[in-house]
């Protein structure tokens, strides 16, 4: 099968070339600073773990990590708590306007973030919320909300109506119907929606760069601080980046399938 062999080699070569920067980041994280800038670049070296320890000394890594975890987790949970009832209502109490509301929610996601930068900045400044986790959490939640409603709606829609009717015949209230039928059956949808929004919030860089710095900054802002020319500590930069991206890239792999659904709003199947 020479065709298969050629295809296999080609696919692997192209893929490894494309992800080479990430592999290089991974390698550099285990080098010393001198090895990191060696010419020609080093592929074989004795790995060291020193960078991971030093990152925290240089830049209070743990604080930024804590901010990233709190803002992304809380915004995701809050978003699910608001989006799930709305999606449930749209999927099971359809009216003529349901479609319009869904489309309108989608349209709010189309507003470029930079269009809202000035007012949001002024509001946050006036309310004393600049550089707070509260502001970032609320904004992450709002910018993910349309995707959440949309994804949950498409999951809930697929739950057979007969199950709900049976529950209603047995005299289940709306709350117990939601609690005992929808939530268990929709668990998969809730989990993958949550996972995807967690990835988005974790990586979010526009609002976190503009609204936060030393107190509420997330890992995205910490990494950006290595931008200055004097910050040429590549091994430490790599170690910090690796710690910041590794968990979320793994999450991302698990949410691949939902990613297409969530990003294209069901326009591509």
């Amino acid at each position: 099968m020479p065709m298969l062999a050629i295809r296999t080699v080609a696919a692997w070569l192209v893929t490894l070339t494309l992800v080479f920067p990430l592999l290089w980041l991974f390698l550099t994280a285990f080098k010393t600073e001198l090895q990191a800038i060696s010419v020609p670049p080093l592929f074989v070296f004795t790995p060291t773990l020193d960078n991971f320890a030093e990152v925290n000394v240089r830049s209070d890594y743990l604080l930024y990590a804590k901010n990233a975890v709190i803002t992304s987790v809380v915004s995701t949970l809050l978003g699910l708590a608001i989006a799930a009832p709305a999606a449930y209502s749209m999927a099971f109490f359809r009216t003529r306007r349901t479609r319009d509301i869904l489309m309108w929610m989608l349209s709010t996601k189309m507003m470029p973030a930079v269009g809202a930068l000035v007012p949001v900045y002024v509001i946050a400044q006036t309310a004393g919320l600049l550089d707070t986790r509260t502001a970032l959490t609320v904004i992450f939640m709002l910018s993910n909300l349309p995707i959440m409603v949309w994804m949950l709606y498409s999951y809930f829609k697929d739950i057979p109506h007969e199950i709900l009717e049976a529950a209603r015949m047995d005299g289940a209230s709306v709350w117990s119907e939601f609690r005992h039928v929808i939530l268990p059956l929709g668990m998969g949808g809730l989990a993958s929606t949550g996972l995807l929004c967690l990835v988005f919030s974790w990586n979010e860089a526009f609002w976190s760069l503009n609204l936060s710095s030393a107190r509420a900054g997330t890992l995205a802002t910490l990494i950006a601080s290595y931008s200055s020319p004097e910050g040429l500590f590549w091994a430490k930069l790599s170690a910090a980046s690796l710690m910041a991206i590794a968990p979320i890239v793994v999450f991302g792999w698990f949410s691949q399938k939902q990613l297409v659904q969530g990003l294209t709003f069901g326009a591509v199947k």
Partner: protein
Amino acid sequence: MSRFLPRALMAPAVISLFLWMIVPLVMTLYFSVVHYNLMQPGIKEFIGLANFEFFVTDPDFGPAILNTLKLLSAVIAITVVLGVALALLVNEPFPGRGVVRVLLISPFFVMPTANALLWKHMMMNPIYGVLAEVSRLLGTKPVDWLSDLPLTSVIIIVAWQWLPFACLIFITSLQSLDREQMEAAGMDGANALQKFWFLVLPHLARPIAVVIMIEMIFLMSVFAEIFTTTGGGPGNASTNVAFLIFKEALMNFDVGVASAGALFAVVLANIAAVFLIRMVGKNLDK
């Protein structure tokens, strides 16, 4: 069932999104017609369209529009063409296909700031970077990417991040391609190119349109990649509209002019959004 309950369940989501949309919009409209500088608090006088005039006549404005369009079209072209090619390459089974797919999608999950710095320092540094080493191996002079080709550098960085997104969508779409039709075409003597042109490409028309529109909306506001690499420079060589608005608002503290600029960005993005929403809406009716 009363009508009250379904509405009450929807209310929190609808109200919060409504506020999220309308409050910034109204404030932007208002700020865009007053003189408002964060360094001069208390002064907010009506100045009509002067902010718009100032923003449009800013010598950085023309280049920023041009850079935005260049960045948009280059990244879209790269991601669509390479995305289709890649998706076709990994569409048929081969050893390790699952691993390849997982690896391919990874750059999309890397936060933009980490992605940008990885390229700025370790890839594009003219002395120690990997690309410089590649140039030396090829016997050419290493390029100082960020100084000499700032916009191209930003394009490469952004395209690298969005290629997996386009590719993933095309991979998903290719799975619904009619295999029997492809086989029938093969038996009728169609070659690979003909099959691609008459069967695969028409099938991909819709996902390609979706990718273009989504990327238009998101790439309009490319910010973190510019902020962490070139800072819009040298000069204004890699300043796009989003970065120009940021400069006006948070570096010159001129809220009024920044708001006028923001309205431009909103209008630009809405052109793409209208088409996308229509397409999604049609799909919803099916």
